[in-house]
């Protein structure tokens, strides 16, 4: 293997992950990741302490560490499988590599190494947390941190074949892939709601005993016993040398296995045989201009897998998020502080989750690419083009908001008038966000370099409204708590007035920002690297 070439390719693979990311975006991501990591560490350490107190510490340590490692391995293996398919089977740079004098072995080694490196950081982080929780020795932790990425690479290489088959199956089946993606997301969310209720119990000082009856503990023990190879890795952490033999051996064997299987994927990619294209019927019936523009917005999102997931699926699960968080948060605040903040919490959650649903509108112009300029050559008004974009985003978020307000009403958290208010509040806030983000993207358009390229929601700016939601909703919640605990009362009507006022002003300002002198700006547009 050519070492210099290997490092050049590895550098390119790693650089690709951060390409086009600004300093602020990276910083924001680091802060978000740091926040999530801190929450995980806090929760895990607290949970481990409670779990160990259930008795038979050695058994409990093994069970919890084995199951944690099993979950970690599962996530890492799935991550490795999708990364392998993406970079070895579907990557666009393969067309270039095929024509360059690069040995396949070196190319594969670089691609596998870049995947394994990412996994090494994750496994090291999780193992450090487990090590701290159960006081494992650091040399075993380091050993496991090296072995786990290799194992996950091997498992991922095996899984990459069914993953690729699934990708091929879902090709062109837009509705089915949307349903599947949303279902997976919803299941993940359902599990997350369990986690939230666990956090609630921990915060309330409960010892989670109702969770872990004799039957549940027996089930956990059984699962841990059969959770191969994670249970062996757990034994390795506690210093069993026999486990080292299996885990180390497995890791060493996983390396050639993953190379062999990845070579098969690459061979398939280098054959450049495209499967037959699915035929999709399209209506030839005439429709009004505005409807055509609206339909175009829908199609370009719905038929791009990355977009459909980050937009429609998030919008579909948003009501669930609001409902779960409401069920946990409402009772938590009531029991901890004795203050009924149901309405304020509903405002906070609605603003927060609708802002997260709308993050996608930050690419309203950029995702169209050069076609945005081509559209300028067609007989359509600037107002029509932008109104279609705004309306499309609003339709999606309106349905989502309607479902979440209805859920809050039917679950008995809010009265009918309050849930209607929440719906319109969310709508006003979303309108502000959509207008503002669309205009900002119009002024700072970043078109993908290729016609079929996709743009990420990369701009840290798109999260500005999430910050506003946190500030308004969180501020309102804090005000309610502060006033109620200090002065005895803070009616919900005050909260409604405050939140409504802020959202209305934001909506008016954003609409002005987008639509004022739009025609002139549209005619003068020459951005997006055309």
């Amino acid at each position: 293997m050519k070492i210099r070439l290997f490092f050049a390719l590895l550098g390119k693979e790693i650089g690709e992950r951060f390409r086009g990311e600004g300093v602020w975006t990276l910083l924001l991501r680091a802060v978000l990741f740091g926040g999530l990591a801190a929450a995980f560490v806090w929760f895990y350490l607290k949970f481990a302490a409670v779990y160990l107190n259930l008795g038979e510490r050695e058994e409990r340590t093994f069970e919890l560490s084995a199951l944690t490692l099993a979950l970690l391995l599962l996530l890492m293996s799935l991550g490795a499988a999708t990364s392998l398919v993406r970079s070895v089977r579907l990557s666009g740079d393969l067309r270039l590599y095929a024509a360059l004098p690069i040995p396949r072995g070196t190319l594969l080694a670089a691609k596998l190494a870049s995947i394994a490196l990412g996994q090494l950081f994750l496994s090291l982080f999780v193992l450090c947390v487990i090590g701290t929780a159960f006081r494992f020795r650091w040399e075993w932790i380091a050993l496991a941190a090296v072995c786990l990425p290799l194992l996950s690479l091997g498992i991922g290489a095996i899984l990459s074949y069914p993953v690729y088959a699934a990708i091929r199956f879902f090709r062109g089946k837009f509705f089915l892939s949307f349903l599947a993606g949303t279902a997976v997301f919803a299941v993940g969310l359902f599990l997350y709601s369990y986690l939230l209720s666990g956090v609630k119990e921990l915060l309330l000082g409960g010892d989670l005993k109702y969770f872990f009856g004799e039957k549940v503990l027996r089930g956990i023990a059984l699962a841990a016993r059969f959770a191969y190879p994670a249970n062996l890795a757990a034994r390795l952490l506690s210093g069993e040398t026999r486990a080292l033999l299996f885990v180390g051996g497995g890791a060493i064997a996983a390396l050639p296995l993953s190379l062999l299987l990845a070579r098969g994927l690459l061979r398939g990619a280098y054959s450049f045989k495209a499967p037959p294209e699915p035929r999709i019927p399209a209506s030839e019936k005439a429709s009004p201009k505005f409807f055509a523009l609206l339909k175009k917005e829908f199609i370009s999102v719905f038929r791009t897998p990355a977009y459909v997931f980050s937009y429609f699926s998030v919008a579909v699960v948003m009501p669930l998020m609001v409902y779960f968080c409401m069920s946990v948060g409402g009772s938590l605040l009531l029991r901890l502080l004795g203050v009924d903040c149901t309405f304020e919490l509903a405002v906070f959650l609605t603003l927060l989750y609708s802002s997260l649903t709308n993050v996608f509108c930050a690419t309203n112009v950029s995702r169209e690419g050069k076609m945005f300029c081509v559209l300028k050559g067609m007989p359509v008004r600037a107002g029509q083009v932008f109104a279609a974009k705004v309306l499309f985003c609003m339709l999606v978020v309106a349905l989502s908001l309607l479902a979440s307000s209805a859920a809050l009403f039917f679950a008995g958290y809010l009265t009918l008038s309050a849930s209607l208010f929440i719906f319109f509040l969310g709508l006003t806030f979303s309108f502000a966000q959509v207008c503002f983000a669309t205009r900002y993207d119009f002024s700072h358009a970043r078109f993908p370099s290729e016609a079929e390229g996709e743009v990420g929601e990369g701009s840290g700016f798109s999260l500005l409204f999430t910050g506003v939601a946190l500030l308004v909703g969180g501020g309102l919640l804090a005000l309610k708590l502060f006033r109620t605990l200090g002065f005895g009362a803070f009616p919900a009507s005050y909260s409604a007035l405050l939140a409504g006022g802020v959202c209305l002003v934001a909506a008016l300002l954003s609409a002005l920002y987008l639509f004022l002198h739009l025609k002139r700006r549209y005619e003068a547009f020459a951005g997006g690297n055309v």
Partner: protein
Amino acid sequence: MTVLKVENLSKRYHKRGEFAVKDISFTCEEGEIVGLVGHNGAGKSTTVKCLEGMLPYDGGRVEICGFDMRKKPLAAKANFGFVTDDHAAFVRMTGRGYLSFLGDIYGVPTKERKGRMEELEKVFCLGKAIDSLIFSYSHGMRQKICMMGSLLHRPKLWVLDEPMTGLDPVTVRSVKQYMQAYAKEGHAVLFSSHDLPAVAALCDRAVLLKGGRQVDVLPLKEYGTERGKLLEERYFHEN
């Protein structure tokens, strides 16, 4: 009737930068094919993009079918169809879906749309691929769907930027024949190209550009069989 009138068109990409094109003036009459010729960086694509409304221009006047591009942009844009040099299209639409979208934008009624699609399909031979996503199209196929889309509303002016690049010889011949037939029907065609023999064979007049300036307008039609020689001589003399 003058279909396209360009007067002193000027454009620069940066406020104090050099002009990408300056003082370009020419016309395109009914039934005429006009070629824009010049080497790389001469300003062909910039001129075409300004005419199409894709790029704002700093000075001059563009009039399509009597409609000023700045004062009456919608009416002007409704009278021409265009193909960009990079064959941009909504790649997540199928070929038929894209044509239908353009039909809606240009207000082509359902009945006429169907007939025109069939007619264009015969010229450009996209076959079954018309019902596949444009995403999966080859370079040439994308060019074909863009050409079909630009003709769906039967515009008075057909503007093409480097139309022959990437097409197979059979389609190139069909496109050339279609250009001639389209002009004969009383429409006007304007295209930019490096292909001197094609420009000489097809065009009634050729606008010669160099360094963003218009250096000549050659009345090729008047030179009969000598038109190729004339264009070549002038082109190499200027470049």
